[in-house]
Every structure is written in C-alpha cells, then in structure tokens.
C-alpha cells in the first residue's frame, strides 16, 4: 500500500522518465538492438515500473498516473518478452532461393489442391463450351477472346506483318499486367481467410476461363497459336496464381485445423512465414510473366515462329519446376 503518494511519485518518476526515454529511442528506430548494458537497464526499469504499477493498481482514483505507468510497462513488456525475430530477415537472394522454394515444398499438399481446383475448373470450362458453344460469351466474355480463334489469328498475324501493334505501349502494358496479376494472386490468397471458400471459387473460376479458351482454340485447329501465345507467359503466370491459391489454402488450413490443441492465433502465427514467402515469390514470378507477356507473347508469326515461343515456354516451365523442387534443398531456412 502506498501511504505517501507524494513521496512515492517523487522517488519513482526519474525511473519512469528514464524508461520512457529508452523506449522512445527504441521506437524511433525499429531495427535498433540495445547493447547489453542498456538491455539490462531496460529490464531493471521494466521490473521497477511493473512493481510500481502493482502498487498503483490498489488506488482506483489514480487513473491518469496508473495509465501512464501502465503504458510504459506494456511497451517495455513488448520489447523484453518478444523473442521472435523482428527484423526483415536475410538477403533477398537467400530468401528467394531458399525460403521461398522451401515454403513451396513444405506446403505441397496445398499446392496440389490449388492445382487440382484450377484443372477441375478448366475441365468444366471445356466441357461447358463443348456442350453449349453459345455460352462462350458468358464464359470468356471479354476482350479479344470474344472473337473466333480464326478471326483473331488472322487479324493479329496480318497486323503484325504491317506494323508493331505493341509499339509505344509495351512497358506500360507490362506494368499493368504485373500489378493486376499480383493483385489477383494476393486476393486469391487473402480469400483463404473465408475458410478457403473464396480461394476455391477464385481458382475454379480462373480454371473455367482457361479451359474454355483452350477448348475454343483447340477445336478450331489453332493449338499451335494457343500454345505459342499462352506458354511463354502462362508457364510462369499460371503457377504463380496456383502459388497464390496455395498460400490461401495454408491460411484456410490454419483456420480449419480445430482438432489441434493449439489456439487459432498460434496456428495462424505458425503459418504466417510460409504465406509471406509464397506471396513474395508470386510477386517476383509475376514481374517476369508481365515482361514476357508484353514483350514476347504478343508477337506471333511471321515475326516469331510459334515453335520458338512454345520451346521458350516449355523451357521456362521446366526451369520453374526445377527451381521450386530443388532450390535450397540443403540450406537451412
């Protein structure tokens, strides 16, 4: 019990002020770590502040003073008891070549689910178009995909033989693709927080469009054009969207695993690094895919032979699969 509040405050105030100053220095630079001497002092001041707070808690009328000391103790508690890393981590190169592929392999079941849903959607899209060709506008009702494959191929090949239709807008088109696709991948991941329903719908819907377009071109006899157009960027872009879905299912898995004894917060905290590794990797892949789509995919024969484009696409796909399955295997994350 504090009998003489006046004396108590006079004695403790210098320590509170010192603690406030120390915490202010730490707040000003989130990356700062204290030398041992300062860390020991911080711990002492925290304990002293905590003891003072316990005494003040017996005084219901001292709201303002208690709140002040409470805020100091809570801030110091956060600094002292946080043993998890609070820095941005290792170099970008190490993260990309080790942390990202390792996270992919740790969560391969979620990737399989993601891929399965996309291909299920694709199968449905192809089937739907086969059963009801008039549904094309509803399935792929946007942009140049509304045209028949024959019209589009004829138009684009003719335009290219006359002039560069992408001239003067390749860079901005590339940036638009990168940012748009990254947003789609982030949303697909974020929808994992709807217990995975949103992620499922997003992947299935994207699969429906992909399947319907693929069926449309294949049945019209333009398979080489389709592969030459889609593979160079799609071999990276589609896996990137699948990785976004994978990250979403990792989140959904943490929400749904109720039989585990850990609390929801702990389960989510455990999967957070993997979700962020996957999303970071997705962003890098989509930058590449955006550049390829704007600067390479949009050029067809006679400028670029379809076989060359298909070969490039397959090579990219092989490199990506090799990278994801092998990179950082022996390194410790």
């Amino acid at each position, binding site marked *: *019990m*504090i009998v*003489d*509040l*006046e004396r108590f*405050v*006079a004695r403790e*105030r210098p320590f509170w002020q010192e603690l406030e100053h120390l915490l202010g220095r730490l*707040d000003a630079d*989130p990356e700062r770590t204290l030398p041992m001497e300062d860390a020991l002092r911080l711990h002492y001041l925290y*304990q002293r502040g*905590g*003891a003072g*707070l*316990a005494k003040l808690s017996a*005084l*219901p*009328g*001292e*709201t*303002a*003073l208690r*709140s*002040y000391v*409470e*805020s100091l103790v*809570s801030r110091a*508690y*956060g*600094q002292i*008891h*946080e043993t*998890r*890393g*609070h820095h*941005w981590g290792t170099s970008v190169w190490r993260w990309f070549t080790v942390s990202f592929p390792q996270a992919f392999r740790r969560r391969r079941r979620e990737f399989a689910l993601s891929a399965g849903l996309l291909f299920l959607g694709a199968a449905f899209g192809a089937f739907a178009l086969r059963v009801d060709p008039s549904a094309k506008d509803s399935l792929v009702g946007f942009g140049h995909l509304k045209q028949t494959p024959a019209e589009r191929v004829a138009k684009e090949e003719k335009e290219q033989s006359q002039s560069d239709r992408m001239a*003067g807008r*390749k*860079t*901005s088109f590339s*940036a*638009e693709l*990168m*940012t748009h696709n990254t*947003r789609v991948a*982030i*949303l697909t*991941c*974020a929808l994992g*927080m*709807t217990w995975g329903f*949103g992620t499922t719908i997003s992947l299935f819907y994207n699969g429906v469009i992909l399947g319907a377009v693929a069926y449309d071109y294949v049945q019209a006899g333009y398979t080489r054009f389709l592969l030459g157009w889609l593979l160079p960027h799609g071999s990276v872009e589609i896996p990137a969207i699948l990785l976004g879905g994978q990250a979403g299912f990792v*989140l959904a898995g943490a929400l749904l695993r109720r039989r585990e004894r850990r609390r929801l*917060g702990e389960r*989510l*905290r455990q999967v*957070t*690094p993997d979700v*962020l590794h996957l*999303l970071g990797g997705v962003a890098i892949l989509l930058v590449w895919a955006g550049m390829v789509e704007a600067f390479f995919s949009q050029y067809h024969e006679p400028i670029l032979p379809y076989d060359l484009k298909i070969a490039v696409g397959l090579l990219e796909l092989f490199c990506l699969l090799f990278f994801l399955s092998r990179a950082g295997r022996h390194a410790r994350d």
Partner: protein
Amino acid sequence: MRAIEADALRIRTPEGVTFSLPLAGPVRRCLAMILDLFCVGVIMTTIGYLVRALSLVGDDVAGALYYLFYFVVSTGYGIFLEWRWRGQTVGKRALRLRVVDAEGLRLRPTQIVLRNLLRPVDTLPVLYLLGGAVSFFNQRRQRLGDLAAGTVVIYEAAIAEPDFTRIATAKFNSLSAYPHLAARLRMRVPPAWIAITFEALLRRDQFDPAARLELYRELAGRFQAEADFPPAATEDLSDEQYLRNVLEVMARRR
C-alpha cells in the same frame, strides 16, 4: 496470459503485473481509414503530376511508372508507415490508434505485412463490409487481416490529469496532516467520484445556491464515509472547502 474484458485486452505478464489495452472502436477505425485513403490519393496525385512532368521518358514509360507507383503506394503505404511508426499510419496517428501484437508483444514485420496484404478480403464485397462484420462479432475487434496476423488495434486515449490547481485555494489545508487517511481515500474512492466532485467545484457559480449546498453536502458525506478525518481537522470547514481540501491531499505530488 491474456484475457478480454469489455473493449479492452488485458495482459498479465510472467512477473504478475497486469495491464490493459483499450480496443479501438469501429467509428475511429473507419475515420482513420478514410484519412489514410485521402493520404494515398494525395500521394498518387502528386506522383501523377511528377510522372507527367517526366515527358522526357515518353508516355509508355510514364504510364508504366504510374502503374507501378500506384501499386507500391496503395499496397506499401500501410506496411511502411506501420513499421516505421510502430503500428501507426497518418490516419491512425490522427485518431490515436495503434496496431499492436495481440499478446502485447513487439509488433513484427511479418505481422504488419500480412495484415496489410489481407486487406482486400476485408473490403469485400464493398466498403469493408466483411471485415467490419467479422470485427463486430470478434471480442478483440479484429478484422480478418488482424486475425491472421495476430494483431489488434488499440485506442491510446489521451488521459488528461485533472488540474487540481484550478480548484485549490491559498488556504492552509488542515487535512494534509493526515497522509494515511488521504492514502485510504485513494484506495477506496472510485475515479468517477473524483471527476464528479472536480466538475462540481469548477461549476460552482452555475448552480442555484441552495442546490449547490445540497450537492456539496452529499458529496462531502460520501468522502467522509470512506475516511473519517478527526474533528480537529474538519470542524471549521464548509462542505465546499472540505471537498477542495480532500481533492488536494489526494492529488498531492511533485
């Protein structure tokens, strides 16, 4: 150890100290978000002018720069500021809000990134309806992004300490000779009584004289019931002077 009381996150440290963090309400969070959207708009307008001014790089590159800047600013605004300002953006700072770890620990970069990247799902279908609904039914007022990242948004109330010098008189305070009774009052008297008495003394001239006497008599009676000062210290005091002296000895500190 963590517990949730009405609109506050209460944390008990391993040392046995308990502190509570008041949770932010939906209106303040909404206002902070509007302010942040305005800030992003201002930044993007400025960048738009700058990009147009860069006519040297051509329309194509300028357009690409605008797309990239828009993405970086709209996605990175919250991440960058919440990291540099320890859980605050411009809007949160103006509304006295702060993002903190749900366990009271230090906010980590991964938490900041995740809660901001998951924002799109909270905005669905429009105007943060999903995130708002989730936080409404969540005890810790967490939207989906907060839930995933293990963060909560708290309100850092500016607690104004009553300025007791405004009611103090230059007279000798006969109660100051009894610090143990003042200590007892501090332990027993609820904050609401102190606030009411303080306001009643400040507004003395707004009361009808008879009502004022009655009010002060009632308030003095409540304080006397908690700590009975000896008659020698109170016998010549009016109820009003008694209340002024009580508040002064309770608040006395350097």
